[in-house]
């Protein structure tokens, strides 16, 4: 833990957003993570994204499982509703929460252990349901809070602090998510805030499950030589293959970006994600193409980053279920209880 607050915290932009709130209003308690932990940079990016999106703090629900990563919801937006739940169970809890109140904005923070080991099943099924939420995996290749065991995202050959090499094939959340039909898939690096912030914003506006896998080095247990999740290694191998700008509804100039074109995708709420390709002929709306494209980078040892895939046409959980627009938690009892007359009528069938 660092007694000095993170940079962002030290010099908050005093510029208020549309709600009249400053960046500082989106901060949380002081981090208790190790100084230099990648997770803290992600926290800072989340703070900025929410601030720039003018999110009313109390309309935000931030959930997590258990782990160093899962501690971070305490470190942003004190004014939001937080739930630091149980190890690997956040996806189901978020699903239920969203079922009950579709009005709030949901952010789930998880770790590679929390999401790819104990929580693998729940994460995959939350993706299948396309629960409307931003799902952040703070991926460091180890179990930080339990002191550095390999996680399921550790690469083959990656060395532990004690020097032993991991022998099991890694689970790549990006590939996995694309494979099982995720509608928003991104990868970034805690050290690359410029890339991170717009992706987070787009994810927060996505009409469904927005998964972002963020390589987030664990300085204490996995930042050494031989680790493939260290700052050094990631800086060396990270390759932004597509850049995304998020253009909120207001400032949108539709003329320029014919909706549907591969260059810009119109979000559910009218805002637009504008893609600027870095890698030639990369189409972030073609799942199959994206998959093979990523495989190529993988085999050449590169970590492709960016908002890799986006399908805004899909239905989220509520669309598919045809749930009322009013949050179920607010539907009046009268609208829910059929009453005695109906009961008596019904019981004629029970004779």
């Amino acid at each position, binding site marked *: 833990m660092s007694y000095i607050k993170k940079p962002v915290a030290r010099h908050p932009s005093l510029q208020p957003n549309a709600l009249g709130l400053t960046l500082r209003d989106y901060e949380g308690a002081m981090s208790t993570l190790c100084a230099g932990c990648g997770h803290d940079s992600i926290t800072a990016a989340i703070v900025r994204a929410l601030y720039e999106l003018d999110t009313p703090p109390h309309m935000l629900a931030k959930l997590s499982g258990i782990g160093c990563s899962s501690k971070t919801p305490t470190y942003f937006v004190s004014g939001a509703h937080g739930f630091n739940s*149980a190890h690997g169970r956040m996806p189901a809890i978020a699903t239920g*929460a969203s079922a009950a109140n579709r009005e709030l904005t949901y952010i789930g923070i998880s770790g590679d252990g929390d999401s790819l080991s104990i929580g693998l099943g729940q994460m995959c099924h939350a993706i299948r349901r396309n629960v409307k939420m931003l799902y952040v995996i703070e991926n460091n290749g180890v179990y930080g809070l339990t002191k550095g065991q390999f996680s399921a995202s550790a690469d083959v050959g990656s060395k532990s602090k004690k020097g032993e090499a991991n022998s099991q094939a890694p689970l790549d959340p990006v590939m996995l998510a694309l494979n099982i039909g995720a509608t928003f898939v991104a990868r970034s690096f805690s050290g690359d805030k410029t890339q991170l912030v717009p992706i987070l914003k787009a994810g927060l506006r996505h009409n469904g499950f927005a998964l972002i896998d963020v390589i987030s080095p664990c300085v204490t247990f996995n930042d050494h030589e031989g680790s493939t999740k260290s700052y050094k290694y990631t800086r060396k191998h990270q390759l932004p293959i597509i850049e995304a700008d998020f253009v909120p509804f207001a400032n949108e100039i539709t003329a320029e970006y014919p909706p549907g074109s591969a260059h810009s995708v119109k979000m559910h709420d009218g805002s637009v994600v504008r893609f600027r390709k870095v890698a030639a002929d990369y189409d972030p709306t073609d799942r199959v193409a994206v998959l093979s494209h990523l495989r190529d980078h993988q085999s050449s040892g590169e970590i492709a980053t960016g908002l890799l895939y986006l399908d805004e046409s899909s239905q989220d959980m509520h669309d598919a279920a045809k749930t009322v627009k009013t949050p179920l938690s607010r539907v009046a009892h009268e609208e829910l209880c059929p009453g005695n007359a109906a009961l008596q009528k019904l019981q004629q069938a029970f004779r």
Partner: protein
Amino acid sequence: MQDALALKINDFAFKLANVNGTGSASANGLIMQAIFRMGIPVSGKNLFPSNIQGLPTWYEVRVNAKGHTARTADYDLMVAMNAETYARDVKELKSGGWLLHDSSWPLDKSLMRPDVTFLGVPYARLCTEAFADSRERTLMKNICYVGTLAALLSIDMELVAEMLKEKFAKKPALMESNRKAIQLGYDYAIEHFECPLPLRLKKMDATKDSILIDGNTATALGCVYAGATVAGWYPITPSTSVLDAFKGFCERYRTDKATGEKRYCILQAEDELAAIGMVIGASWMGARAFTSTSGPGISLMNELIGLAYYAEIPTVIVDVQRVGPSTGMPTRTQQGDILLCAYASHGDTKHILLFPANPGECFHFAVTAFDLAERFQTPVFILTDLDIGMNDWVVPKLEWNDQYRPDRGHVLTKDDLEKMPKFFRYSPEDELGTAARTLPGVHSKGAFFTRGSGHNKLGGYTEIPDEYQDVMDRLARKHKAARNKVPKAIIERRKDAKIGVVTVGGCDLAVREALEQLEVQGVAADYMRIRAFPFGDDVRGFLDEHAQVFVVEQNRDAQLRSLITLETSTSKEKLRSVLAYGGFPLQAEQVVTGVLSQLVERTVESVRE
């Protein structure tokens, strides 16, 4: 033979042996329903295998004018339609009884019984002659015996006809073949046997204000009326039909005719760990949410139940108990999850349990469960079992008070929050040991951080002993405060009763019947049926009043008795157990012998002393 048996009117039992997946269910249902409509107290117990098609299955019907409709194993009549179990079925029939069988094939002579009257009807032949399609022939064979029974037991054929009309209103062809099959069986009986048997039915009007309903349907209905909007569940016998019914009712009552929009959200989870997680998430957001499962599911929910307890999130869990341990016998009934549910999860935890005894109580307790869960901000279990949940019961018509409004417990409104300087989730403590909560999205001041890790009374993270204990002690007080807010026990006293008999849930009818029999044998006992945990003063009072108390329950390890031992001041010495845990619904006989045998013991002992 027959004279051996006196005339038995509205007081006998019969059993039907079939092969599952051959339509016998609907035939047996018809019989049960017809008797019900004749105004006679009746019960039907479906003893089915954990299998989809082809294995033996039985259906037991008991009619009893006095209303004693608990299961009984002494059958006056056996309908033996399953060759595979024929031998066993013949044996089970009581002496002087009748056995109805398909005489299309010769009977195995070695299985004849001189003390039983064999009634043969060539069902296979009759149906082969009457029906063309082969599948129809098998199905109608079973419908056919409905007619025979109508003749033998004098079931009102008018009623049967009426029921067919209602049932197949939309399928005239099916109605016709059913009618035909029934008539076939009826005519054959009239023609060949002396009908009705001394065993017969006579119209009464004991059921006109009652309905025929299974517990799972009633539970689901209760959840709808309580205003539950979110359900997270995973299929498991015998609880699946709770959600089937909930879905049905929601489609009917909660779907906007115009837009098709739904005022509910049912989530078929990937497993029970997810199901309970969804319920916790939804309740956290302020919706009324529930899950329904059975033993194995409760085991899997164990970790998150502790989270709901410690973070104080209202959670309603329906446990339709089946036979454990492990997969056990999924289609058999038991009360084996009482202790697990009372103390579910690691660390110090105690929960609220409700024990309905029949579908009527399932309906009302479902509503109570939500009120208690929100009032005490904690998990509440509704413990039913396969017998209550999946069998049809005759219960008084359900009534609903339209004045009812959900008890949301201690929840702060927008205005409350507006007025207060600062909100803390876990204090101040009110008289129930709870503290005010807020619902997300209502007001910026209402935001707070929920956690399953150590927290102090302000909701802040802590690792300090006193702060931790502070909250844990309140949770203990809270559970204690629930004592007299839960449904009271049902207590029935008898003159000069020396002993008390305590039971729970589905044991009700069998025990009440047993007490009558015991009284006849000179043993008068007071009766108490516990309906909830923590135990209220009424329960404690009853226990204190009696020098000897028998606890009747359906599990091996005397779980209710254990809970009483731990959670009341009753001395163990006066508690004795009557246990039945084979998986079939409890019988009065089991209770009578259980009590008598130990009364004897007792005297022997006192002699020794």
